[in-house]
């Protein structure tokens, strides 16, 4: 599904390389976790894949379902099935959560040449999905993320994910700022979206999120490279020994 080969990335206005040859394949139906110390390049990878400005790919490739995504605009990648759940979701005052989400759903459908969703149908679907995430009517009507607690913001990200039905979901430090109950709720939302034709890339610093979202494969990233790949037991190893041993082991 997602195929990254020898990806080298630097900041646009600096010469310093951040990603130094990342190789990674995420298959449909699988959950891959990327763990790593701060500054290892985890978040950069998520930004580069979703098309944020400010980075320059100096070598390598990334394809989603066989399509080269690196030359696409962020909205084209979204329409192609890419979704990034932000570590810090942005507040947009004056724009209703539901209005925004309906625009996004229909923009993607339009880009794919599909029929737009009617407001009745949209309302029906969003009410159902919001209920599962314990998002009430008030939160749907309020401006996007404005006045939301940390947990509400992350639940709102998952609601967007559920409505947009992406092929590949990247979760960037989704556990940051969440208490145990909120993390459980968010994880349940993510788990409900697991399906044989959808891939997940879960980026996290800590192992605890992976107790709730069970990964199939765990990668350790260090200094812009994936230095170790294994099963869920690798996450436990990090929990017990920290990243230092793994780096040395590499």
């Amino acid at each position, binding site marked *: 599904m997602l195929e990254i080969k020898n990806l080298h990335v630097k900041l646009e206005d600096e010469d310093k390389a951040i990603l130094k040859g990342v190789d990674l394949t995420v298959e449909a139906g699988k959950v891959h976790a990327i763990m790593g110390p701060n500054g290892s390049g985890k978040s950069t990878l998520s930004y580069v894949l979703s098309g944020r400005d400010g980075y320059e790919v100096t070598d390598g490739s990334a394809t989603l379902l066989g399509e080269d995504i690196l030359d696409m605009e962020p*909205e084209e990648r979204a329409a192609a099935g890419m979704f990034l759940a932000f570590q810090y979701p*942005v507040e947009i005052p004056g724009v209703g959560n539901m209005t925004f989400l309906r625009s996004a759903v229909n923009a993607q459908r339009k880009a794919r040449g599909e029929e737009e969703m009617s407001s009745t149908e949209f309302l029906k679907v969003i009410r159902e999905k919001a209920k599962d995430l314990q998002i009430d009517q008030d939160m749907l009507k309020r401006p996007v993320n404005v006045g939301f607690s940390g947990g509400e913001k992350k639940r709102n990200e998952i609601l967007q994910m559920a409505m947009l039905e992406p092929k590949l979901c990247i979760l960037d430090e989704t556990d940051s700022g969440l208490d145990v109950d909120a993390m459980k709720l968010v994880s349940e939302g993510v788990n409900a979206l697991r399906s044989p034709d959808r891939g997940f890339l879960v980026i996290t610093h800590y192992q605890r999120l992976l107790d709730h979202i069970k990964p199939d494969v765990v990668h350790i990233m260090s200094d812009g490279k994936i230095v170790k790949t294994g099963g869920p037991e690798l996450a436990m190893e990090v929990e017990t020994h920290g990243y230092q041993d793994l780096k040395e082991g590499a």
Partner: protein
Amino acid sequence: MAMLKPKAPEPRALDLAETRIAALTLPEGGWAEPARRDALSRVRDMGLPIARDEYWKYTKPDTLTAVEPTPAALFEDDDAPVFGAFDRLKIVFVDGVFDADASDDLALEGIEIERLAESRADIHWAKDIYGTLEARGQTPVKRPLAALNTAFATDGVLIRVTGKPSKPVSLIYHHKSEASDAILHHVVKVEEGAELTLLENGPAAARVNMGLEVDVADTGVFRHIRAQGRDHERRAATHIFGRLGRESAFKSFTLTANGVLTRNEVVLELTGDDAIAHVAGACMGDGDFHHDDTVFVTHDAVNCESRQVYKKVLRNGAVGVFQGKILVEAGAQKTDGYQISQSLLLDDDSTFQAKPELEIYADDVACSHGSTSGAIDEEALFYLRSRGLQKAEATDYLTLAFLAEAVQEIDDEDLQAEIVERISAWLFRRRAK
């Protein structure tokens, strides 16, 4: 109060005034004539604004003071009129002249409405307000165009609110002649405990000089929502003078989209304790557009609150100006004053000039002011695009988000939605181009 002695007017400013006055006719007779004559001598003493005036540093006054208005092409507005779906009492002016056929019957429970042009009696409630609030607003800063307005206004409405009318009063202005020049002056008196919502929309004329004096008695409420018309070439100089009694509220919001020149001045005096004054403006300018908000709020009572919230979206060389002041007189303790002026510059060609000021003579007050100028937030733009929105659509959403704080100053949810609708339509038209 410490104050600089006003400079003597420049001979050129005085000449300009005489030339302008000579081309106008002072309406005679009735209760307003003494006030008009007083205003005339104020204009003669002050002269008209010239480019060198400190208060006109960022906005060229010449087209506003010239004898002849600059012609403005008529504008075909294919949108449904603003506030069109609202139940309201309509009062229509065409190029500054009252249009009886297009207007509703000027009768509504809890309210008395008369035309300034027809009000010729010697005794009238408006006598204590007409020109009085304007004259009070001439210190410490002179506003000659407002005095000119008081002297020569040819039409307008006098609204006395004694109760809580069931619907808003809506002033609708049409511009139907290319070289029209209108001088309109309205007076509103909100009596104790009474409430009024006043709506205004439309461009009024190729050039308009508009005056509005509002006296809100103790516990009265005045709400004002104005949409200034989308004519590209029109020019407008407007003044709102407000005086607020104890526990009264004054809330005014203005939407400006298009117009080559707009100078909106608001001068408010909080004279009774526990009063609230909120003034806000949202403007969108594209290309040949100059918009100036000049606001002066004086706190002269205890425990009052004032807010000034001004947001401007500018592109293709559009210019925005904000001059805002909060003056807290000695004794106006527990004042809560807030002022924010911000611009969103959608390209490098647009400019925003801001002069925020605080002048405080009381020691127990909380006043804040801030002014910023910025571009679209890249992080927010990326967030929206990553959800599938095209860049242009995402930019529009962020523009709406930027204007939200000003628009939210409108209390009524339906009217707020109406204004948001107008802004969205304006943005959509730009995107479609």
